[in-house]
């Protein structure tokens, strides 16, 4: 079984191929051209160099967010169309799960934090379990200060990863026992996506391309303003 993973929820764009043997090929770029310009040639590239033909792909996994809206949609629109054309099912995974997974060998509380701009972050809390991580809280959007106060209240050692962690290092490190992971853990990776998608594919936890939904966690500005006016 070959899974194609597509990841565009943050400033990084990535894709990877993998299956039983783990990750067979991957591509990541966190600066340079825009996601929409890079992604399709990158998919072509990893397929070519892993010597995998498109028709061998049996599932398409994609990061459904939360993250940068326009970037997320480039990946999801690409992934949906590929799955539709290949007639294969999809697996949608959250960017926060993808950030937590590579640091699963830490026994501390794990807090992936993605920069949501406008002074807010996307986050959730995780803990190590055999073979991976388990999410303890809802996916949510909040200010870095709100997150810091929650971490203080929990009074546990915590590992923060993600570009939001780096940006708001000063605020978050105020909470005692918090370490902010280095830049190597700052972006969700397509490799982690393929690794996490594989057991789901074995369990046939699929969605169809027309069913896959994005995880925005924030309404559009127009709706926020509308709600505000309605409540006044």
């Amino acid at each position, binding site marked *: 079984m070959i899974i194609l993973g597509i990841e565009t929820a943050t400033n990084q764009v990535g894709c990877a191929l993998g299956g039983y043997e783990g990750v067979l090929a991957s591509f990541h770029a966190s600066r340079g*051209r*825009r996601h*929409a*310009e*890079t*992604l*399709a*040639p990158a*998919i*072509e590239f990893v397929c070519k160099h892993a010597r995998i033909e*498109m028709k061998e792909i049996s599932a398409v996994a994609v990061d459904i967010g939360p993250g940068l*809206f*326009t970037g997320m*949609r*480039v*990946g*999801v*629109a*690409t*992934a*949906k*169309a*590929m799955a*539709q*054309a*290949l007639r294969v099912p999809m697996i949608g995974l959250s960017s926060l799960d993808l950030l937590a997974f590579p640091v699963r060998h830490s026994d501390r509380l794990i807090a992936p934090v993605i920069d949501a701009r406008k002074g807010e972050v996307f986050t959730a809390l995780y803990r190590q379990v055999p073979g991976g991580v388990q999410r303890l809280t809802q996916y949510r959007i909040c200010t870095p200060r709100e997150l810091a106060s929650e971490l203080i209240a929990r009074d546990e050692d915590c590992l923060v990863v993600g570009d939001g962690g780096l940006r708001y290092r000063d605020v978050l490190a105020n909470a005692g026992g918090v370490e902010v992971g280095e830049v190597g853990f700052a972006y969700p990776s397509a490799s982690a996506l393929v690794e996490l998608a594989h057991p789901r594919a074995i369990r046939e936890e699929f969605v169809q*391309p*027309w069913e896959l*939904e*994005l995880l*925005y966690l924030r309404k*559009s*500005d*127009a*709706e926020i303003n*509308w709600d505000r006016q309605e409540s006044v």
Partner: protein
Amino acid sequence: MAAEVPSPFRILALETSCDETAAAVVADGHDVLSSVVSSQVDLHARFGGVVPELASRAHVDLLTPVIAQALVEAGLDGYGIHAVAATIGPGLIGSLLVGVSAAKALSLVWGVPFIGVNHLEGHLYASFIEEPDLEPPLVVLLVSGAHTMLIAMEGPGQYRLLGSTIDDAAGEAYDKVARFLGLGYPGGPVIDRLAMDGDPHAIAFPRAMKDEGYDFSFSGVKTSVITYVRKQPDVSIADVAASFQEAVVDVLVTKTRRAATEIGANGICLGGGVAANSSLRERLLDACIADGLRGFLPSRAMCTDNAAMIGAAAWWRYQSDGPTPLDVGADPGLHLPLVG
């Protein structure tokens, strides 16, 4: 790089530049095997205009079923498609990227070329779908909520811009007047409908720059409608709608007609959402008859945003330029490629 094109050459085209999610299969640039348009008008109506973020979200949700329906109606699965096209601009960046990303993905899987299409060029070819024997030179009046352009089309890919709006697009003026009158969004259809019961000569609204050059200005007429109604709150709204429409259409038709005479055009084509306006269609046809010109008015479905016109333009573009590289992005401010 010109490309050899076999016949039939079936293009699956996607259009997501604004608030319509559309897919179509078009053979040889004019034979429309299917054309599916899913409008988001209801989604944006309460905001009085298109909300870019909402439009982008809707495109991601709607595109998969719209593509599926276009293929089914054309009686094809993906392997009967020879190329995949998408609008790459101008338009809303977030919306454009959804269609461009999907089109590239389909072209990768099917192993067929990707063709990036200029949305404005799509409107220019809408007339060719229903009249494949059109003979340039033609004058094309492109009028929508975002554009008002008068273009001399000297051949496929040979465009000269004669004039464009210096402020509001014609459709934008309709929307703003409708909003002021409390008629809702979009403004074009509702003003058109109201105008049928009004007297177009009841109020003499200004016709900016009617007899000079080919540029347009619709900001003044919009303002004078607002000023007039404020001063005369008891005026018949139908008369206001009819007189406003008369002022806009008068300028559009007068300039288009003058342009056709000046460049020695064989005919006049219409494109863009405002081209669905009944008064504009009627007046332009009258002018063509009076001047001995052919008037090509695409059906209303072809005037408003659709993917069939993108498929038609893609066929012409592919023959002259070949496939578009997969590393192209979307360009929200893309200009029509002009000669000279």
